[in-house]
């Protein structure tokens, strides 16, 4: 894959105003699905570095971030190469807060159908947001529906 030779450029800074032991991580990602796995690896590595191993948190984080990035790339930016996906993570001792923002038209999360409804069970899509809500401790959206903020407890 051509994109494999490229690298996501990460900015990592301390977060003294919020937490003395905290850090902030930021990067932007092209609107290509081929970048998602690398971006998930990157964010997981930063979020889980220097803390006791927590396999369940790693899994929750990987799946939820992969979902949020896929939504941003495919549904938000519609894979438009002129648009980017922005990823911000705040790393605190007790929580990790990850925000994924796209440059699309936004959506209303309240209008996403319930994938457990009988008429939805055989559908091949529409489970992403549902999984995020199940795997993440707190989920918020901005008013436009172009940004999702996910809080993971480290406990």
């Amino acid at each position, binding site marked *: 894959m051509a994109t494999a030779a490229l690298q996501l450029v990460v900015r990592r800074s301390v977060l003294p105003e919020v937490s003395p032991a905290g850090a902030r991580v930021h990067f932007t990602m092209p609107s290509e*699905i*081929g970048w*998602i*796995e690398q971006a998930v690896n990157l964010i997981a590595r930063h979020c889980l570095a220097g803390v006791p191993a927590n*396999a*369940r948190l790693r*899994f929750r984080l*990987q*799946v939820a971030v*992969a*979902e949020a990035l*896929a939504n941003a*790339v*495919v549904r938000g930016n519609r894979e438009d190469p002129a648009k980017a996906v922005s990823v911000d993570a705040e790393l605190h001792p007790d929580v990790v807060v990850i925000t994924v923002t796209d440059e699309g038209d936004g959506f209303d999360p309240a209008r996403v159908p319930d*994938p*457990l409804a009988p008429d939805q*069970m*055989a*559908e*091949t*899509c*529409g*489970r*992403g947001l*549902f*999984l995020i809500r*199940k795997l993440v401790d707190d989920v918020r959206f901005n008013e436009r529906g172009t940004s999702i903020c996910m809080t993971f407890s480290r406990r």
Partner: protein
Amino acid sequence: MSFQVSRDDGGVTVVRVEGQLIVGNRQELKDLLGAALDAGDRKFLIDFAGAGYIDSSGLGALVGLSRRVREAGGELRLSGLNEDLRSLFELTKLDTLFAIADTPEQALANF
């Protein structure tokens, strides 16, 4: 390489997922099973013992493949889901849609 394909003595096409099954590679799995189906294969096992994580696109691809195989008169089974992966199927109730065995050997024993 995301998927390793082999064929067992009973004529079951076995696909081992190595790494993730996500939006970036689900089409590869769909193409792979689609080609085997077109070639006449009807029994499929997808083993996740070497898998990392699955996203909703990966789950959706499995739902679509299961339907396609069933409509052709075949069967698709799954195996090797660890506790985390199994939880994704349980949360989405897809565990009711698939025959899921603990190991590939168990899945193949009565296929």
